[in-house]
C-alpha cells in the first residue's frame, strides 16, 4: 500500500498547517478519519449468538475449570466457572488466553512425517496411523524397544499409554518431572503411602518453603482463591502467609513475610525451624521424635544463618508466628515446581507432623482406581531414562511422546535433545510444534483442550481426592488433528490388543464410574471429590540424617529457576497474548535478564545490564543482568520459559533456556535425581 492511513492524515494536515485552529478543518479531518478507518484490512468481528460452555482447560499444569465464551460457535474468550469449587470462578493467565491459542501459529496443522533434517511433509491420517502401527508391530514383544514419555500427570491418557506398552511387552513408560512424583517418594520415607494434599483454606498460617503456591505450585487458582478468602478487601486478614525461598516472587509479594532462602538450603532451613519449635516446647508422638530432635539440634538458627545468610532473628520470629498459630501448614517444594529432592519434601512435611497437622492441614489421598486394566504405576522418570539412552544403557527403537517436551524441559536440555537422536523412530503427540516435535519422525497433532475430551484426577496439592473432566467446546477442531488416545486405541486394535475401549471419552466414562462420579455432571463443569484417607506419618528422621548444611562457595552461585505462570510452561511457550505481561527488565528484544541482588553482583563483578554467560555441566546460558534485591544472597534467578528453538515468531529465539544449565545430582540416600540445588558459574562476556 503506497499510502497508509497515517500518511494520509499527515498529508492533509500538512496541507492545512496554519489554519489548524479553525473548526471547519477539524471537522473535515474528522470525516477523513472516518473514511480512512473503513478500509477492508481492519479485521471484522464475528457475528452470532454468544454462548458460554463449561470446559476443562489443561493449558496450565494444574488445569483450570473454566467457561468458554463462543460467538456463532467460535470460542473467543475464557471466563471463570463460578460453580466449580476448585477454580471458583478464577482463571490463570495462560488459560485466559485459551481461545486465541486455538489459532496459535505454532499449531501442528496436520500429521507430518520427517523427510530430512528439520523438514517435514504433511501426510494423511490413514498413512500416519499405518506408519505408527508398522513401527510398533516390528518391535512388539521386545521389552525395552518401545518406550513412552508422558508429560500429563493427571489425565487417564497415561493409563492408556502404559496399558498399550504393557500389551506390547514393554514396561518403559516414563513421566516428565513434577512434584507429585517426588512428594509420593517423600511420604514413603515418612512411613506412609499416597499422594499428599494440603488444605490451605483450612489453615491460619501457611508457610511455603520454595513452593510458589500462589503462582505456579499445585492448583494455583484454587490456592489463590483460598488465599483471597482470608483477606477481605478493607477487612481483617484471617490467616498469615509466609514465603521462604530464593526469590521475592508473586507468592512472596502478597505474603506477610518473605525470607530469602537459597534453593540449596530448603531442607536445612526446615530443620532449623524444627529445632526452634522443639526448643520452644513442640513435641510429638512420632516414633522417631528423639532421633529427629537430636538431628534438628544441629541446625541452630545461627548455623543456618552462617550457611545461608538468612538472619537468625528472622527465623526466630517465624518460629514464634508458627507457635502462635492454631492451624499452621507447611508446604515445601521447588520454586519452579520440579527438581527438588524427596528430602526437601520430607524436611518440610516433618514440620506438619511435629505440629500435629497431619490429617488436618496435610492430608494423604487414597490410591485412585484405574480405568485401564494392565496400566502400570507412573513412577519412572523421563530424565533418568534419556540419560540411559545417551549412554546406550537403554536402546528403544520407538519412542512415543505424549504432551511432553523433553528436548526443552529436562535438565541439561541440550544433552537430552541429543539423546533423542539415538532413538530411530520418535512420535510426538502434540498440539504445538514444540522443540521435541520438531525432532520427531512422526508428528500426530493433538486437539487443543477446547476440542477434546480430557480429565484431571488429583492435580498435585488438592487436599481431597478430586476429579474433573471436560468435553469439546467446538464441533470441529481448527487443525486436522485427532485425539492421541483415540489414535493409540486404534493402533492397539490393529495390533490385536484390546484395552477395553474405543475412544478416550469411553476411558473417561469408565474412570468416572470407577470413582462413583457422574460423567455428565463432570463435563458440564462439575467436580467429584472424595475423602482423604487416615493414617499417620513419622518424621522421616532416618532419611533426614542425610541432609547436609549447604556450603557457601566462592566460585559458584545457587541457581534459582523462576516460574511465572503467564509465561507458559514446559509444554507451552508464552502465549502471544501474554507477551505483553513480560517486563522489559525480564526480556528486551532477544535478551533475557537474569536477576541477582547488588551484593551478589558485586561479588561476581557485574553491574546492571552487563552481558553474562552462566555455565553448568555442558550447558551455557547467555543473558544480561538485572539487579533485584528480592533475590537471596549468593543466588542467581532465571526465568523459565524462554529460549525456544521451535514454536513461532512470537517466542522463537527470544532469550535463553534455563533448563540447559540445570545439573542433575543424586540425592543422598534416596536414589532420586535432583536439580533444584543446581549451581552455576557466572562470567562476563
Amino acid at each position: 500500500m503506497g499510502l497508509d492511513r497515517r500518511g494520509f492524515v499527515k498529508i492533509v494536515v500538512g496541507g492545512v498547517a496554519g489554519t489548524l485552529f479553525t473548526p471547519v478543518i477539524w471537522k473535515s479531518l474528522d470525516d477523513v478519519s472516518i473514511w480512512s478507518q473503513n478500509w477492508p484490512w481492519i479485521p471484522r468481528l464475528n457475528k452470532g449468538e454468544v454462548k458460554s460452555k463449561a470446559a476443562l482447560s489443561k493449558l496450565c499444569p494444574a488445569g483450570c475449570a473454566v467457561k468458554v465464551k463462543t460467538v456463532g460457535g467460535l470460542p473467543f474468550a475464557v471466563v471463570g466457572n463460578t460453580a466449580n469449587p476448585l477454580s471458583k470462578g478464577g482463571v490463570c493467565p495462560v488459560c485466559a488466553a485459551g481461545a486465541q491459542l486455538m489459532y496459535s501459529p505454532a499449531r501442528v496443522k496436520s500429521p507430518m512425517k520427517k523427510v530430512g533434517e528439520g523438514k517435514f511433509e504433511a501426510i494423511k491420517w490413514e498413512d500416519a496411523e499405518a506408519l505408527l502401527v508398522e513401527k510398533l508391530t516390528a518391535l512388539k514383544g521386545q521389552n525395552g524397544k518401545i518406550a513412552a514419555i508422558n508429560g500429563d500427570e493427571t489425565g487417564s491418557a497415561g493409563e492408556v499409554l502404559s496399558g498399550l506398552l504393557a500389551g506390547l511387552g514393554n514396561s518403559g513408560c516414563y513421566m516428565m518431572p513434577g512434584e507429585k512424583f517426588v512428594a509420593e517418594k517423600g511420604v514413603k520415607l515418612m512411613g506412609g503411602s499416597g499422594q499428599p494434599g494440603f488444605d490451605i483454606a483450612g489453615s491460619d498460617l501457611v508457610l511455603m518453603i520454595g513452593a510458589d503456591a500462589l503462582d505456579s505450585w499445585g492448583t494455583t487458582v484454587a490456592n489463590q482463591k483460598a488465599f483471597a478468602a482470608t483477606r477481605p478487601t478493607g477487612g481483617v486478614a484471617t490467616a498469615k502467609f509466609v514465603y521462604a525461598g530464593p526469590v521475592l516472587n508473586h507468592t512472596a509479594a502478597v505474603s506477610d513475610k518473605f525470607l530469602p532462602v537459597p534453593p540449596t538450603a530448603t531442607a536445612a532451613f526446615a530443620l532449623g525451624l524444627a529445632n526452634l519449635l522443639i526448643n520452644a516446647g513442640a513435641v510429638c508422638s512420632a516414633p522417631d521424635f528423639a532421633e529427629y530432635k537430636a538431628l534438628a539440634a544441629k541446625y541452630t538458627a545461627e548455623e543456618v544463618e552462617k550457611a545461608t545468610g538468612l538472619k537468625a532473628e528472622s527465623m526466630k520470629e517465624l518460629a514464634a508466628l508458627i507457635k502462635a498459630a492454631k492451624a499452621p501448614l507447611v508446604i515445601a517444594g521447588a520454586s519452579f515446581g520440579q527438581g527438588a529432592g524427596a528430602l526437601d519434601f520430607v524436611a518440610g512435611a516433618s514440620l506438619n507432623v511435629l505440629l500435629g497437622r497431619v490429617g488436618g492441614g496435610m492430608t494423604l489421598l487414597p490410591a485412585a482406581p484405574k480405568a485401564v486394566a494392565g496400566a502400570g504405576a507412573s513412577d519412572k522418570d523421563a530424565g533418568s531414562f534419556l540419560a540411559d539412552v545417551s549412554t546406550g544403557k537403554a536402546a528403544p527403537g520407538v519412542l512415543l511422546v505424549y504432551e511432553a517436551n523433553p528436548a526443552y524441559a529436562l535438565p541439561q536440555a541440550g544433552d537430552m535433545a541429543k539423546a533423542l537422536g539415538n532413538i530411530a523412530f520418535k512420535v510426538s503427540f502434540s498440539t504445538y510444534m514444540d522443540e521435541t516435535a520438531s525432532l520427531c519422525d512422526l508428528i500426530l497433532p493433538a486437539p487443543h483442550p477446547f476440542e477434546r475430551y480430557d480429565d484431571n484426577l488429583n492435580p498435585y496439592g488438592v487436599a481431597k481426592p478430586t476429579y474433573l473432566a471436560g468435553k469439546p467446546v467446538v464441533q470441529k477442531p481448527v487443525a486436522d488433528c485427532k485425539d492421541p488416545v483415540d489414535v493409540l486405541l486404534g493402533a492397539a486394535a490393529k495390533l490385536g490388543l484390546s484395552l477395553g475401549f474405543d475412544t478416550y471419552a469411553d476411558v473417561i466414562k469408565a474412570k468416572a464410574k470407577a470413582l462413583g462420579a457422574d460423567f455428565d455432571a463432570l463435563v458440564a463443569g462439575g467436580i467429584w471429590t472424595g475423602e482423604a484417607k487416615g493414617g499417620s506419618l513419622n518424621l522421616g528422621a532416618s532419611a533426614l540424617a542425610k541432609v547436609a548444611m549447604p556450603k557457601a562457595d566462592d566460585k559458584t552461585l545457587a541457581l534459582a529457576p523462576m516460574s511465572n505462570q503467564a509465561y507458559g510452561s514446559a509444554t507451552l511457550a508464552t502465549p502471544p497474548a501474554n507477551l505483553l505481561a513480560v517486563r522489559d527488565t525480564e526480556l528486551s528484544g532477544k535478551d533475557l535478564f537474569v536477576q541477582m541482588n547488588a551484593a551478589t553482583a558485586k561479588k561476581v563483578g557485574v553491574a546492571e545490564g552487563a552481558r553474562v554467560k552462566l555455565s553448568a555441566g555442558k550447558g551455557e546460558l547467555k543473558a544480561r543482568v538485572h539487579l533485584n534485591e528480592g533475590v537471596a544472597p549468593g543466588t542467581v534467578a532465571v526465568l523459565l520459559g524462554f529460549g525456544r528453538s521451535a514454536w513461532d515468531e512470537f517466542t522463537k529465539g527470544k532469550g535463553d533456556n534455563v533448563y540447559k544449565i540445570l545439573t542433575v545430582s543424586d540425592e543422598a540416600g534416596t536414589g532420586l535425581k535432583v536439580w533444584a540445588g543446581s549451581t552455576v558459574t557466572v562470567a562476563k562476556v
Partner: protein
Amino acid sequence: MAHGATKEFKVTWGMVIDLDKCTGCGACMTACQVENNIAPMVDASNKMRTLSWMLVFELSNKKSGAEAEVAYLPRPCMQCGNPACVPVCPVVATEKNEEGGIVSQIYPRCIGCRYCMAACPYHARYFNWEDPIFPKGMEKALSPSTSARPRGVVEKCNFCHTRFMEAKDKARQEGGNPEGLADGAYMPACAEICPTGAISFGDVKNKEHKVFDLAQGKDAFRLLEKLGLNPQVYYVSKREWVRKLGDNYAATGKPGAAKKHS
C-alpha cells in the same frame, strides 16, 4: 467541558483494587486484550509500541533481603472525574459526558495527534503504531465486543463499555432499572477474571455496591490525588510504603518506581 471542574454523575463506575491481594499474575492483562481485540505483538518488549490498556506495574520498597517487598499495581484508565485528556483533544474524540462517568474514546474521530497521551499523567493511553494484525486464523477468535482499531488512532481502557451497554439492555429486558444496575450486574473483563478477586467494581456512589465503602476505607487512596483529576479508580493497601508511592507519584508528577514497566 470546563477545565478544572469535576462533572458529577448520578452513577459513577469505579474500581477498587486491593494491592495486598494482587499477585501480579497478569490474567487481567490477558483478559483485557482478549475482550478488546488487541493484536499480539511480535516484539512486545518494545514498551513504546505496545498497547496495554491494563498494565500491571511492579513497585518495590527498594530494600534488600528479608526487608525487601514488592507490590503489583494494575493500572487501567482512571476514568478521571476531571480528565486531563478530554479538554486537549482538538476533535472531541474523547469525552466525559455519559451517565456512569466513563471517559470515551471515539476512534473514527481520532486523528492521532496524541495530545491526550501527553496530557494523561497515568500513561493510560496508547497509540496504534501498527495495524491490528492477528496471526492467520486468530481473527476467528476476535471478541464481538469491540471493533479492532486501525493504526493512527489512540486507544485506552473504557471499563469494557460494551459490557455496560449489555448490562443495561439486560436490565431493560428483565424489567429492571438500567440506570440503577445491581452490584455485579456490570463487570469488566479484568475484574471478572482476577483469580484473587483483587479488583472490585461497581458504582462508587451507590451504597448498595461493595465499592461504595471500599473506596472510603482508611487504606484507600488514588494515584496522583494532588493533581485533582479525581480518578474513579481507587487502590487499597495496608502497606504504608505502597500508599506513599501513590503519593510520591503525585509529588513528582512521575510514576516513580512504577515507571519500571512502561
